[in-house]
């Protein structure tokens, strides 16, 4: 039985823990709260230096959101982002499943070197390659289209997903595979019917990270596409919503909030996958 004194100590310790977390949580969440509040506030209040900026006093409005839908290409940007993210992630996943299985499970000469090569490309930051890639995209005749991004995004998705999936494939017991092979299944059948179903959590994880990384990508999308109707949501909001006058903050924040929604939805539903993916390999951060 805990004595009153130790219960008091435990209570103090818990209070200490929560009290110290408060500034961190505030720091993490305040920018999002403030963006949301800004996007729902009337211009008159937004640009009134006497008004309290933390909440809405003169009534909540949706004009900034309506502006996005009626006067900008916001929906086109969202559609572009969705197509690019899904297609690029899909292609990358197929390549990464094949390569990851091979590197994690099969024995052949050079497997270690290939693994190292994948790891190194995984560490190459996109900012190192965006200039030559911008020329490659021109030569391929796909610059200024969403294809420029569908083709280049796998360059960082494939190494990342391969690395992540290798870890998951290693956890599948070797005996199960060997049984299947002895029973007469071909190697491809073993991979597709035996190993893949057991690595589903890893594949879901790779798909979620792939979607998030492509949706959030900025420098390639900014560099390879300049035509408004081919832009991604992130670049469209960042570059096309800033108008000549200074009173664009409401619609800018509305765009930033809405363009984050797809990622937030994935995040809310699959939080545990994000946490495990982050800790499974070292993820870019």
């Amino acid at each position, binding site marked *: 039985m805990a004595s009153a004194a130790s219960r008091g100590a435990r209570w103090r310790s818990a209070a200490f823990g929560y009290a110290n977390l408060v500034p961190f949580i505030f720091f993490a969440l305040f920018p999002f709260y403030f963006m949301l509040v800004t996007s729902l506030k009337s211009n008159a209040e937004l640009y009134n230096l006497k008004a309290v900026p933390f909440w809405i006093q003169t009534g909540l409005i949706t004009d900034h959101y309506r502006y996005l839908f009626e006067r900008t290409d916001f929906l086109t940007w969202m559609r572009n982002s969705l197509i690019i993210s899904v297609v690029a992630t899909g292609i990358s996943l197929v390549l990464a499943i094949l390569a990851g299985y091979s590197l994690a499970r099969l024995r052949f000469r050079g497997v270690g070197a290939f693994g190292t090569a994948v790891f190194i490309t995984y*560490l190459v930051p996109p900012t190192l390659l965006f*200039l030559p890639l911008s020329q490659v995209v021109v030569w391929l005749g796909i610059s200024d289209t969403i294809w420029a991004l569908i083709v280049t995004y796998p360059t960082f998705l494939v190494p990342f997903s391969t690395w992540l999936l290798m870890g998951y494939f290693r956890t599948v017991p070797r005996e199960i595979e060997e049984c299947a092979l002895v029973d007469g299944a071909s190697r491809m059948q073993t991979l597709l019917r035996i190993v893949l179903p057991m690595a589903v959590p890893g594949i879901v994880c790779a798909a979620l990270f792939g979607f998030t990384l492509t949706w959030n990508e900025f420098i390639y999308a900014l560099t390879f596409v300049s035509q408004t109707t081919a832009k991604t949501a992130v670049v469209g909001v960042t570059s096309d919503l800033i108008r000549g006058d200074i009173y664009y903050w409401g619609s800018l924040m509305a765009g930033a909030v809405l363009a984050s929604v797809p990622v937030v939805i994935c995040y809310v539903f699959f939080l545990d996958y994000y946490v495990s993916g982050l800790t499974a390999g070292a993820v870019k951060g």
Partner: protein
Amino acid sequence: MAVGSRAFEAAGLGPTGRLARVHEWWEQEHVFGYGLILPALLLLACLVAYPFGMAIYFSLSDYWVGSPGAFVGLANYREILGNEVFRQTVQNSFVFTAIALTFKTVLGVWLALLLARNLRFKRLLRGAVLLPWVIPTALSTLGWWWMFDSLYSVVNWTALRLGLMSPPGPNWLGQAGYAMAAVIAVNVWRGLPFFAITVLAGLVSIPREYYEAAEVDGAGSWGRFRHVTLPLLKPVLAVVILFSTIFTFSDFNIVYVLTRGGPVNSTHLFATLAYQVGLNGGNLGQGAAISLFLFPMLAAVVFMQLRYIRKE
């Protein structure tokens, strides 16, 4: 391989000479192994290795957008190294990376220790902490841009009301020192979750017995942290810090959205300067040379990571 051909027969296709031989060839472990990595390898060769080679070639030529230039040797590098803006960028990059990493490491470990306690709403708290890492950085940086606005800054509004600043307060993105502080703050904000959550995973894997043994030996909470937690956390911390070094050093999004490298180049990093020179200025040769200065840092980190992983 006997197993493979048997499967083939079982599938009812029959051993029709050539096809069966191809199948048998494909079923060999090494052939299958090479076959599976080939697509990924081709992609990486064409879109990572080849562009990397191009970057080196660009940096040795006077290549401008639309006009493939001639080979000029090290002229671009010589010009860059003599350039005041570039030297400023080198200094900025190191200051930015060193300060941001220090904050992320210290605060990250502290936050992980707090999250490792037996808390209610554990999942909710972790979810909240990780959020800045998940939201598109360019978009959340727009929010920070607004928070640092020269006229309507909510940071200044609050600090003025609390009496922490004298009016009108700093123009965050318009003064050199403050702009650097702002850029670092946003980088710490966005990178902290990665540190905290990864270190937390490391913390959870430390066996409880170690702490109990230390307690028996009379170690206080600082002693336990110093002699149990920190040494056992070292491998995780090393990996996280190495990773973050590359991606902090090569950061683009935050600086581009918040300051575009200004005021007067005081926040330019390699990536933003390369963008300005190579794309806005059209001088691909010099731009490529600037971005290649990221390479030594990348090589150093890769070297350390590989040595480290080999040791494991």
